[in-house]
């Protein structure tokens, strides 16, 4: 497709949600008033995110799939000459899937929220914040300037903070505070690292810095800068032991907030590692990789054990919290893949990124639906003595939950499998100079982690989906249970794309790996064109 069209599409991805966000605060123009201001503004959200998704798909369609390693649709205009900050946008095989994922998940969230309005203050602000969040996330995947990346990275914090703080559940204010303080502390440290790279490297341009491949930076500079940047990104990813904001934030966040937090916000951390740390400070990446891998593996085991503890009967485990902890484990695989510094591992990490976004997004939607029906996400309350028997009472919902669970545990043939397998495969044969025995141990531990994941996911399925029809005491007949609505139309619309893509990515991984692999090869070898 025409280069200019591509450029405009990419710019529109960032600018449209921003404009839409401002427009959401204004009163609706005549002709678009709908059935009242609330409905009109929610519809506005669906329209804007829909247009953005269409633009993202058009961008992907026009993307030159023969050269995914080349930076495409580039725009490069000066913005602040004083600091040498340029508005530099571009997309390659690494960022394209994340852009589409973000646009898709936000659209589905807007659609879901349209039919199932989150309880809280005015929907106007909700839509404005949602669009602001989308703009920031898309921007962080599309920009190619370190300072703009930081700006976009920060831009998502305020909307997410307010989404949790105003539309969340119990304990929301504390959770929102924790979320924002943790991530801000991380990002300010990251800013120092980015500044160091930019000032010593002579430019903030990510393409130029990646092409230099760290040649302009002394070893000490690289070590200090990479430590600061990794610390900031690790909070976001989140890497054990910097993860403790995540379970609270997820538990308190509204359904849509959880979906976007897990689906796209966490990816900004791992994307930054691949885009910034690997190519710009390669020596430091080499030094820190074994430690990063160790933390990643601890995260995998820790996340799984925490989930197992929550899934036990009588533990009063919250289902949302459980999925949040499972995210810690899954992101551990992503970090392990990156820490192998091999094309296999990094490709696996990027694949697992997308897969986690699809699957965990679906799971959070499903848990939100459970909460709407039961009024709680407490596993013990849900399952009672014998199990919630979702298969019997709402078979489609139960089936979807089981699907999400087995996809999450990495069943071959679904999206969750490839990323984690490739990450472990990368650990089996890490980059030259990394200790092979250590990585073999990491691989073994990660494999053990997948077993634990399977265990808790199956426990969840057994407790939520299966179960007897309880016998009412004394009578010997089946007790009456309130009727449970099965999957509604809007839920079906919001979830089916995720299910379809999970199956598609599982059966045809080459579609995604073909995009990322050339770009990853080039990032590891020194730079982007």
């Amino acid at each position, binding site marked *: 497709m025409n280069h200019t069209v591509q450029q405009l599409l990419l710019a529109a991805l960032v600018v449209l949600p921003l404009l839409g966000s401002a427009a959401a605060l204004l009163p609706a123009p005549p002709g678009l008033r709908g059935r009242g201001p609330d409905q009109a503004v929610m519809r506005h959200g669906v329209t804007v995110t829909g247009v953005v998704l269409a633009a993202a798909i058009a961008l992907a369609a026009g993307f030159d799939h023969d050269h995914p390693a080349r930076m495409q649709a580039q725009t490069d205009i000066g913005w602040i000459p*004083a600091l040498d900050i340029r508005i530099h946008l571009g997309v390659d095989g690494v960022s394209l899937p994340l852009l589409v994922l973000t646009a898709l998940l936000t659209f589905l969230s807007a659609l879901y929220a349209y039919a199932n309005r989150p309880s809280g203050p005015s929907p106007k602000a909700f839509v404005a914040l949602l669009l602001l969040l989308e703009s920031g996330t898309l921007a962080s995947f599309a920009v190619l300037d370190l300072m703009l990346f930081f700006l976009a990275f920060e831009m998502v914090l*305020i909307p997410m903070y307010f989404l949790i703080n105003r539309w969340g559940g119990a304990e929301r204010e504390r959770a929102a505070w924790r979320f924002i303080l943790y991530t*801000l502390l991380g990002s300010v440290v990251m800013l120092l690292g980015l500044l160091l790279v930019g000032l010593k490297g002579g430019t903030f341009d990510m393409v130029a810095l990646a092409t230099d491949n760290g040649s302009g930076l002394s070893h000490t500079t690289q070590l200090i800068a990479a430590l600061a940047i990794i610390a900031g990104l690790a909070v976001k990813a989140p890497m054990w032991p910097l993860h403790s904001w995540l379970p609270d934030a997820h538990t308190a966040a509204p359904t849509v907030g959880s979906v976007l937090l897990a689906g796209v916000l966490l990816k900004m951390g791992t994307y930054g590692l691949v885009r910034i740390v690997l190519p710009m400070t390669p020596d430091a990446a080499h030094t820190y990789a074994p430690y990063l891998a160790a933390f990643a593996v601890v995260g995998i085991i820790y996340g799984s054990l925490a989930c197992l503890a929550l899934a036990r009967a009588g533990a009063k485990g919250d289902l949302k919290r459980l999925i949040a902890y499972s995210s810690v484990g899954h992101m551990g695989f992503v970090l392990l893949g990156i820490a192998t510094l091999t094309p296999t591992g990094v490709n696996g990490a990027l694949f697992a990124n997308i897969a986690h976004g699809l699957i965990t997004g679906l799971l959070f939607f499903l848990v939100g639906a459970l909460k709407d029906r039961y009024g709680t996400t407490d596993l013990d309350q849900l399952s009672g003595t014998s199990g919630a028997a979702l298969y019997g009472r709402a078979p489609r919902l139960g089936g979807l939950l089981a699907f999400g669970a087995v996809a999450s545990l990495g069943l071959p043939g679904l999206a969750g499998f490839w990323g984690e397998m490739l990450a472990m495969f990368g650990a089996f044969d890490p980059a030259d100079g990394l200790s092979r025995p250590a990585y073999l141990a990491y691989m073994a531990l990660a494999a053990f982690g997948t077993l634990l994941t399977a265990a808790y996911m199956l426990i969840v399925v057994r407790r939520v989906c299966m179960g007897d029809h309880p016998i009412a005491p004394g009578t010997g007949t089946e007790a009456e249970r309130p009727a449970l609505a099965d999957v509604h139309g809007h839920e079906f619309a919001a979830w089916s794309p995720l299910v379809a893509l999970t199956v598609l990515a599982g059966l045809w991984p080459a579609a995604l790996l073909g995009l990322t692999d050339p770009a990853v090869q080039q990032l590891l070898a020194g730079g982007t064109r």
Partner: protein
Amino acid sequence: MSPNASSLAASLVQSVDWLAVAPPTVAALAGLAVLVADLFLPERRKHLLGWGAIAGLALAALALLPLLDGDRSTFCLTTGAHACSYTADTFALVIQFLVLGGALVTALLSFSALDDLKLPAGEFWFLLLSSAAGAALLPAARDLATLVIALEVASLPAFALVGLRRGDRLSSEAALKFFLSSVTATAVMLLGVSFVYAATGSLHLSRIAAALTHVDPRLDTLAQAGVVLTLVGFAFKTAAVPFHFWVPDTYVGAPVPVAAYLSVVGKAVGFSGLILVTVLAFPSYADVWGPAVAVLAALTMTAGNAAALRQRPERPFSAVRLLAWSSVAQAGYLLVPIAAAGYADSGQDASRAVGSTVAYALMYAVVNLGAFAVAALVARTSPANRITDYRGLYAARPAAALALGFFLLCLAGLPPGVIGLFAKVTVFSAAVDAGLGWLAVVMALNVVVALYYYLQWTTELFRTSEPAAEPEPVPAAGAAVTRPRAVPLTVAIALTAAAGIALSGAPQLVLRFASSALL
């Protein structure tokens, strides 16, 4: 006349470049005009004085325009080495613009405060204009005597402004505190100036700089003491630790517009003085003042933020108190590039580092005035001005709440306050460039701490106000209800918000000062 006599006359009588000195002069003359007009205007026409003052300030700001074409100097020595007492270079023009613009916004804020607090109009406008004239003179001053005089012309009316609320115990106490600590600082500074004069034999900054490179070894201690004592005086004006204790009480006691004026113009005066003295007069003592200013910066921001964190939102005047402590913390950030200038390899680098302070000060001036403007607006309906009074402001006045949220996020340095973020980035990069890594880390931690209280206030704006637990005391004769709409106040908020948004879209407007040599 003999040729001899005419050359003598030429050496004694110098031609004054009136255009160069126009900005402070116009402000001072406008002040006198307002004072005289006050005598002849009937009571009900007094509000005309305010518009006169605003016109004077605008005229003074317009007088900057003809000076843009290049540096001008006047009041130069006619004999010996070339040295001038007044120079209108880029640095002076930018700070003069900041000062006059700040005074203009303060004037807009003051209309409703004058009405509400029943302040004497003529005196108020005269004092404001006089102080602005002194503040506008200072950045152009190039000798220590002019500097001290300008500093005092800027400060003395400020004492009176703080204490202008007649019969208010808090107000007079604040004025007294401010006065006593300020006078002490001035005395110390004069002692330092005299030491420097004794050691170098000159008051002109450029000649002091030259003389300090080869001080008589017997006078070396004297010169060092002079340098340190001179800096102490300016550190006081900037409210740097440990000279910051007067700030909260003074801000709370003063009428809100005066607090806004002190926080922006008062600080600008201190900073420009500090920059002139350190970079122009004492560059050879950079190894003395560089580390000292760095430590001062770290202490100031930490102390300011720690105190701001401890403010309880339900305490009376907590909003102004929080702004006061936050301004102390911001002063710490402003000091960082000056410290970095002390570590610069060349005068060029030092001048560039100082540019970061100027850029940051411009950003700070816009958003801090904006925040005070909204505080002044809220103070009209809830005089106690607690942070809890801001709860649900979005529901009551959406535009004001959005503006305040924007200003606070700019001060915090979070998007959408893009300009605040990038101003901080320039300060960070000045520190990193100068090799002051530890200071950058201290500042980073402080930025995060500061985010806590700025964000907490921002959240308060959007919280739905709880059903009033204690019914508001019904104001006597419906005073709050019948108060006329404050048009100038609204204009001030709109002006600062527009400036903040414009700067966020095009940060280059102020950040270009960070990349060019100003002095």
